[in-house]
């Protein structure tokens, strides 16, 4: 799709994708700051900063963002990832200036009123406590904590409760000032607008903002894992869970396209945009056949975490009542071994490729989803990430799928978390 890219003098990269017959407009700003930029004792600060950026500052009073977008019938939200933080508004196209004004104020002028920071402390703790109610959150946190000893992927974006309880306003504000600057961000517009007019308005809104000294590149890298790591959690819960994570390279690595097809063959493909697939469950993959069809499990999924730094490929299983974790793990091992032994047959690889191809279309559903795709791509290095990945997936050969299975799905690089569901107390 026609996309125009420009960079302002202050370093803000602007990505414009006009869609002439659309009446809506989605405005996204992605900052290259995530929980990977945090340090121990300050975990969760990036996410907390994200919450504070809905509370006004500069031209915006408290509640103004909410009110302005609501009056337009718009939707807005923000997401904090390990690698980036994104904000968006989807509004009627005629109200472009409202979104640009909100985002330009948010970029440098957030208030961080101490009273508001304090009020938000319990909100972010509440968000974490809601997640703690779910057994799979405990498994996820344990998995990343165990797989990464040095790199900040050790903790999840929500942060540790003890840090959320003690973090002060000033370090949060410094964190904001350090990373929220035009030269550490990209602005994405998708929808019904004229690119030339949009550029003029963008220059007016963002041009005066001063750049910051670029943040230092992250120097931490995770040393190679030598030997499998395991954890057995015993907690009250409704079902046993198994999660296995293998170290894989960063999103920019040449092996990523083959890993996409490996993921699809093993566990199906649900696109790269979170939420796009909804409740849809792929069923033609090997783990579904080996675990769900055989009644050992009721749910299975494989996801490839595509991140700036080497991350994980994770297989997650919800066990059926009466199935044993040992047996399910043995089946998982068997399926991985099969992938290492032989390349996927032609028909299976064609099916996997078709799924990836189809989701690349389905993920373009409307201006908001296109905005998230372009922004998440920017967060990983380039708005073209998704398209480039698809082009590379088209060229992957079956033998390459076997090669990445052999290179990455090895026990010595694996972390396994088993959740042994204990009887729920009466």
């Amino acid at each position: 799709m026609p996309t125009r890219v420009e960079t302002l003098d202050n370093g803000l990269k602007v990505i414009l994708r006009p869609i002439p017959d659309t009446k809506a407009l989605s405005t996204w700003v992605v900052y290259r700051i995530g929980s990977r930029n945090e340090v121990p004792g300050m975990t969760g600060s990036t996410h907390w900063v994200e919450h504070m950026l809905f509370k006004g500052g500069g031209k915006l009073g408290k509640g103004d963002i909410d009110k302005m977008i609501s009056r337009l019938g718009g939707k807005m939200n923000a997401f904090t990832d390990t690698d980036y933080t994104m904000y968006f508004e989807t509004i009627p196209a005629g109200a472009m200036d409202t979104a640009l004004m909100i985002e330009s104020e948010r970029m440098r002028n957030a208030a961080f009123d101490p009273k508001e920071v304090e009020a938000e402390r319990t909100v972010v703790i509440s968000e974490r406590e809601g997640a703690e109610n779910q057994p799979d959150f405990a498994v996820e946190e344990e998995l990343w904590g165990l797989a990464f000893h040095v790199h900040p992927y050790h903790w999840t974006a929500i942060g540790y409760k003890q840090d959320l309880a003690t973090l002060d306003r000033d370090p949060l504000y410094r964190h904001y000032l350090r990373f929220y600057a035009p030269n550490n961000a990209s602005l994405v517009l998708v929808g019904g607008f004229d690119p030339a007019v949009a550029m003029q308005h963008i220059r007016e809104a963002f041009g005066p903002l001063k750049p910051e000294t670029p943040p230092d590149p992250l120097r931490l890298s995770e040393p190679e894992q030598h030997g499998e790591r395991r954890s057995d959690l015993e907690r009250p819960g409704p079902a046993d869970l198994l999660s296995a994570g293998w170290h894989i390279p960063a999103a920019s690595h040449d092996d990523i396209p083959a890993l996409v097809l490996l993921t699809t063959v093993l566990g199906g493909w649900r696109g790269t945009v979170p939420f796009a697939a909804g409740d849809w469950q792929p069923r033609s993959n090997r783990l579904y056949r080996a675990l769900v069809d055989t009644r050992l499990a009721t749910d299975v999924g494989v996801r490839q975490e595509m991140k700036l730094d080497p991350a994980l490929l994770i297989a997650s299983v919800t066990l059926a009542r009466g199935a044993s974790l040992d047996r399910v793990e043995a089946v998982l091992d068997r399926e991985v071994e099969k992938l290492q032994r032989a390349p996927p047959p032609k028909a299976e690889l064609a099916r996997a490729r078709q799924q990836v191809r189809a989701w690349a279309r389905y993920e373009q559903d409307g201006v908001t989803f296109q905005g998230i795709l372009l922004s998440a791509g920017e967060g990983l290095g380039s708005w073209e990430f998704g398209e480039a990945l698809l082009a590379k997936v088209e060229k992957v050969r079956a033998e390459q799928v076997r090669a990445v299975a052999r290179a990455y799905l090895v026990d010595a690089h694996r972390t396994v978390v088993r959740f042994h569901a204990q009887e729920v107390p009466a």
Partner: protein
Amino acid sequence: MNLPDRTVLENGAVLVSHALPSNPFIAFRGSVPAGVAAEGSDVGVAEFTSRLLLSGTRRRSAAKLADRLEGIGATLEFHNGEELLSFQGRCTRETAAETVRILVECLSGPSFPPKEIERVRGELLNDVRIEADDTRARAFRELARLVFPKDHPYGRDPKGGEAPIRRIRRADIVSFHEAHVGPEGLILAATGDVDRAVLDDAIAAPLSRLRGDEGGPPAIPPPPPHRPGSAWLPMPHKTQVDIAIGAPGVPRRHADYYPLNLANLLFGRIGLYGRLGRNLRDEQGLAYYAFSGLDARTAGGMWSISAGVNPANLGKAIESIRAEMDRLRTEPFTLEEITDGKDNQMGSLIVSLERNAEVASELHRMEYYGLGMDFLERYPEIIAGLTGERVRDVARKYFLPSASSMVVAGPVGRTRFRL
């Protein structure tokens, strides 16, 4: 905007569509009247049936169905609800004909293999346990039971519960399917990359070959009177408590629906959750989420409040919710609030219909509730016609603490708070 296209096929099925050429695929959503309301005393059979429609047909196994659908990159799902067995999917114009043919095959000729029935039984039993361990799901399940008593379809767990799940036999599923799944009452809404040729050749043609029941949609009785109650569900192993509060609302076609919808928007939805969110989240920091909802169906509905809080803040949270409900009487919605809400509803017409999937859902709703294909054109007039007084009146009438039920699930301790 052109009006959506509506076609009634010879077999009674209704096809509605709207082209959105900038979205490069087709999304569809549809239903047959074979939800919980159709199952009568065969509790749980509708859920079983919906989960088995991708489990094999007379022509091919579950594995072959999955291989084919995913081989062409299409998606297809079936879900059970209180009134409907619904389906939805995605495909491209090139794969639309085959996708709809598979949909028709699944609807008309499922084979219900015994092995698959046992697989689904295990899946359902697990899901019942998982839901029972989820504070919010459990609180809302119990709230629905209180608001819609006496085993009304709206108050029943669509999964039926452990005992019915263990009891259901293949014959029950087969006879439910034969009696309720067919073209009668079927609606299919398609949007995106559609035009006349795709509609006629790829969608209407295979859909018109569907044969089956002639019973028509089941009559859904009005819900029995609600007697407000409360329930405390201790789940000491959890960190957060979920509060669910609710009472009967109105059917979708009721005269109070639009003012109530606006009142609900202002009370607990607009922006960061309206008045409720402003109080509980923004001002007091008690909860990450505190919002209201409005569910309006054919024969009735429910409005509800949902909040997740730390157990130490439970009393304060309930008291604050109560205060906000009372404030609807002492400090009714201001003119500014009502204007903001109306502006929001007008503007959201554009924003809420920017995705294929959203448009397909809206088209389906328009057809199912008989709102007319010109509904989206009339909507601004409907909203403009709402007076402040009417909105305030329905808020006072429906959001009434003394007429509401409350359920609390989580680590609740011994102290019991009243709404």
